[in-house]
């Protein structure tokens, strides 16, 4: 977005952590992605071997560095050479010779390789350090402006001023519902009771979502700093990060980061030599989707069964141990330090096309799109830009059919809305939902009834079992969808399913059950003919479902 | 004008609902004055008539024979009543549903049999995979739950129907 005002200039990257460090300033840097996706393809071994090979080759002015997610996860393992703008894809531990040669000959002459739209159309705020800094190195973080915001807040702002800044920035919760962050902070600050708590929701349970994981793996200090600023703003002294145990790398980096931050005086007592104290503990979730729901998450931290409870009272008033509790998503916290550093105005100017949605949103692009991976875009960017410019279009040039956003409570948006802006309100208008940022692109090989069944299966398995509409309703809805997919349903069954879906949505206790029927509603809204084809013509237009032979007695 | 015709059939049930019908006692006489009982396990007719106005169906749809019979009955009946819990919910016959037919037979005819351990084959109609409530097979017009439904409820319902009123089944409940 060209109208975006530039952020304040940042010091040049410090190189040389985790890999091989040059004696003087580095001529070029090999930034090896060490986030989960590339690590799973041995990028940690690549980091080690490349360091050795660079040393063997006597390249004393080359730094080899561990960095976080470089974004194009599907093309990993990735190595970036920031000085020349080169991105090396699909590197393996056995194909490092060409990399060494490239590093030998690379000359940073200010002439960077033109960036592909995948990168150039992104606006990076929450992920600004991602792929640039060493995620475990607190000095590297500070060299990139880290902890400037916290210092500024502690030394020159009152808690009310901080809340006001966040409110004016227009930041809204990135965990799903998009509740105003400043308003939430103010509610917690004004709530009676002490101590107060700050919780970071890192449970990230949506199928296919990995935005929060990447932030934690690539720039954990940023989340700690955001939480510390929040704690100051709501006058809390204890914090928890609730992270799913399936994210071992994120958990390890968080623990390292917390330890380093404590040693460097950015956590613990007397932070940054002021009288503000705040500490953070990590709590592991066992991977139940529902534990991402805030009241279930709190129950889980308290050591109880992770099931939601009716709200009100909201956690802001009565949360952890019954005390006022601020709970925000990882990405929400990841935006905070940038807002403080650059000002509320700067942030709210980003994504001006997004109406009441300000700033940026991180999405995990998945499905039938060429560039799958992690992207951060300004609010209000059109779906078409995301799918075709950033995503590189549909695999094999097939026709675009729909994009699914919002995870299991979300919806499918058909091609006719490709030019709609992606923001909270617009997504709701077309029957979908921002959610935490999963974005699954589908082409004509996807059956929309099958898609609805997939998400219902997920909700059915993840229902906590507390309330009958969700516990029983999702199972019944799943069976009805299954019956349609196998060609055994009648039009009366379809009617019955719609009726039940509406009741489950209305009467369920928490967002899981209330949102579970959404994939049914949105696919029916745009693809009803596919349901009818399964029922009346007994065919699956996309050729996905196996229709049973006709003679089954009803 | 001829009197309306009334029939009752019996699928997979215990006959308790029919007993309860008989418990309407002397009111039965009045009912048979207002309607012709043209087919029932308690009368002699062998063939279900081509057209019946009101038919009470006791029992769940459990076997191929039940299935055949209920489809025929539905075709020939104006007002079909699911009569009693077995017809309404599948009730006791439905208790086999979670088990499935093969393990059920194994238990009943092999494991628990003392002599002549073998599965029934030719004479009895084949069981359907599950015992189903009548309305999951054909359209049902009136439901009268109860195991069995109380005689007063049966009478009141028939009284309403024969008088051309929408039947009031308030007070009917599953079980007793």
């Amino acid at each position: 977005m060209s109208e975006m005002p530039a952020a304040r200039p940042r010091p040049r990257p410090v190189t040389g952590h985790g890999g091989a460090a040059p004696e003087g300033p580095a001529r070029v840097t090999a930034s090896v992605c060490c986030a989960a996706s590339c690590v799973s393809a041995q990028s940690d071994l690549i980091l080690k071997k490349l360091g050795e090979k660079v040393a063997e080759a006597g390249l004393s002015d080359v730094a080899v560095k561990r960095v976080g997610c470089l974004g194009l996860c599907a093309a990993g393992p990735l190595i970036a050479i920031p000085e020349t703008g080169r991105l090396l894809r699909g590197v393996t531990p056995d194909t490092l010779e060409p990399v060494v040669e490239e590093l030998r000959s690379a000359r940073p002459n200010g002439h960077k390789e033109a960036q592909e739209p995948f990168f150039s159309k992104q606006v990076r705020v929450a992920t600004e350090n991602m792929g640039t800094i060493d995620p475990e190195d607190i000095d590297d973080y500070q060299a990139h402006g880290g902890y400037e915001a916290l210092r500024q807040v502690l030394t020159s702002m009152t808690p009310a001023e901080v809340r006001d800044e966040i409110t004016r920035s227009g930041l809204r919760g990135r965990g799903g519902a998009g509740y105003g962050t400043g308003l939430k902070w103010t509610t917690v600050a004004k709530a009676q009771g002490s101590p107060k708590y700050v919780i970071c929701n890192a449970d990230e349970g949506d199928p296919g979502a990995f935005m929060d994981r990447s932030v934690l793996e690539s720039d954990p200090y940023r989340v700690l700093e955001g939480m510390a600023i929040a704690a100051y703003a709501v006058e809390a002294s204890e914090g928890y990060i609730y992270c799913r145990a399936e994210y071992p790398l994120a958990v390890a980096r968080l623990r390292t980061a917390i330890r380093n931050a404590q040693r460097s005086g950015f956590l613990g007592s007397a932070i940054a030599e002021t009288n503000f104290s705040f500490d953070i503990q990590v709590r592991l979730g066992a991977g139940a989707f529902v534990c991402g729901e805030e009241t279930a998450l709190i129950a889980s931290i308290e050591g109880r069964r992770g099931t939601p409870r009716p709200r009100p009272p909201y956690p802001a008033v009565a949360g952890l141990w019954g005390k006022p509790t601020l709970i925000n998503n990882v990405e929400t916290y990841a935006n905070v330090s940038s807002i403080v550093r650059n000002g509320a105005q700067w942030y709210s100017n980003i994504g001006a096309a997004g109406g009441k949605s300000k700033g940026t949103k991180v999405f995990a692009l998945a499905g039938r799109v060429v560039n799958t991976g992690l992207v951060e875009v300004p609010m209000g960017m059109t779906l078409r830009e995301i799918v075709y410019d950033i995503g590189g279009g549909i695999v094999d040039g097939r026709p675009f059919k729909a994009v699914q956003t919002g995870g299991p409570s979300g919806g499918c948006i058909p091609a006719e809305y490709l030019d709609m802006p992606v923001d909270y309100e617009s997504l709701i208008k077309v029957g979908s939902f921002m959610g935490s940022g999963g974005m699954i692109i589908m082409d004509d090989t996807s059956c929309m009834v099958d898609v609805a069944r997939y998400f219902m299966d997920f909700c059915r398995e993840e229902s906590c079992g507390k309330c009958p509409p969700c516990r029983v309703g999702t199972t019944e809805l799943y069976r009805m969808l299954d019956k349609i997919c196998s060609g055994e349903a009648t039009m009366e069954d379809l009617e019955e399913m719609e009726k039940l879906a509406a009741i489950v949505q209305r009467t369920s206790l928490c967002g899981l059950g209330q949102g579970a029927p959404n994939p049914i509603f949105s696919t029916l809204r745009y693809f009803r003919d596919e349901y009818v084809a399964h029922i009346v013509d007994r065919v699956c237009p996309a050729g996905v479902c196996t229709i049973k032979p006709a003679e089954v007695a009803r | 004008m001829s009197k309306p015709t009334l029939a009752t059939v019996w699928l997979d049930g215990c006959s308790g609902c029919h007993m309860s019908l008989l418990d309407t006692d002397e009111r039965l006489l009045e009912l048979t004055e207002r309607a012709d009982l043209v087919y029932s396990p308690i009368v002699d007719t062998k063939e279900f008539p081509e057209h019946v106005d009101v038919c009470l169906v006791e029992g769940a749809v459990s076997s191929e024979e039940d299935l055949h019979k209920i489809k025929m009955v539905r075709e020939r009946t104006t007002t079909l009543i699911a009569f009693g819990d077995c017809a309404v919910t599948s009730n006791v016959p439905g208790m086999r549903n979670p088990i499935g037919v093969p393990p059920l037979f194994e238990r009943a005819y092999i494991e628990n049999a003392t002599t002549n351990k073998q599965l029934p084959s030719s004479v009895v109609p084949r069981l359907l995979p599950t015992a189903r409530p009548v309305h999951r097979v054909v359209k049902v017009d009136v439901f009268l739950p109860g195991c069995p439904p109380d005689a007063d409820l049966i009478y009141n319902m028939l009284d309403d129907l024969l008088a051309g009123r929408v039947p009031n089944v308030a007070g009917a409940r599953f079980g007793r």
Partner: protein
Amino acid sequence: MTTVFTFTIDGQAVAGSEDQTILEVAEENGIDIPTLCHLDGVKDRGACRLCVVEVAGSNKLAPACTTQIAEGMEITAHSDRLLEYRRAIIEMLFMERNHVCAVCVANNHCELQSMAEEHGLTHFDLPPISPVVGIDASHRLFAIDHNRCILCLRCVRVCDQIEGAHTWDVMQRGIETRVVTDMGKPWGESTTCTSCGKCVQVCPTGALFEKGRAVARGSKTRRPYLPYLKVVSEERG
């Protein structure tokens, strides 16, 4: 000093003190709101959703048992729509397990069965789930038949909050959710169960019953437990 709020339920003017729930005030005023998971004397959990009411100005339904009253609230506790929801919830509970009232030990003493009758349910449109669930009859005096359990968790709460034994708990989730004794051990091997029988008395259905009782003979009304529970919990504060 407690503040008194005045508000309306189904158009009727009512008053309550600030710490009361909608359900409590409704009961005091003779307005019947159906409940299943609620039990006087143990903590409410707002789970069964039967007591949901509409509050003017809110687009969400509120469970009467856990929602605090507020000044000027306009509450609808009975409407055609709410009746439809409640019937659907009762129906889902029937479909979830294998409820065969005719042969149930709690026949005619069952809150679920009565609830169906009171809401005019004469049949079920949803397909039955017919799960395979078991019976644990290993306890000397009592048994649990999961075919009849509606997961109200009254047993869990009364055992924990009143008896203090915490024998009962919940395992698994979704449609697989089950109440369990001693983390999944057979009830008869429980080392925490005091055999007080409170769980059996509070169970709304025939899921928990005294052994040796025939069909329809599992009356739960012989011991006046419920008022007792309320008194105990009030004394404990």
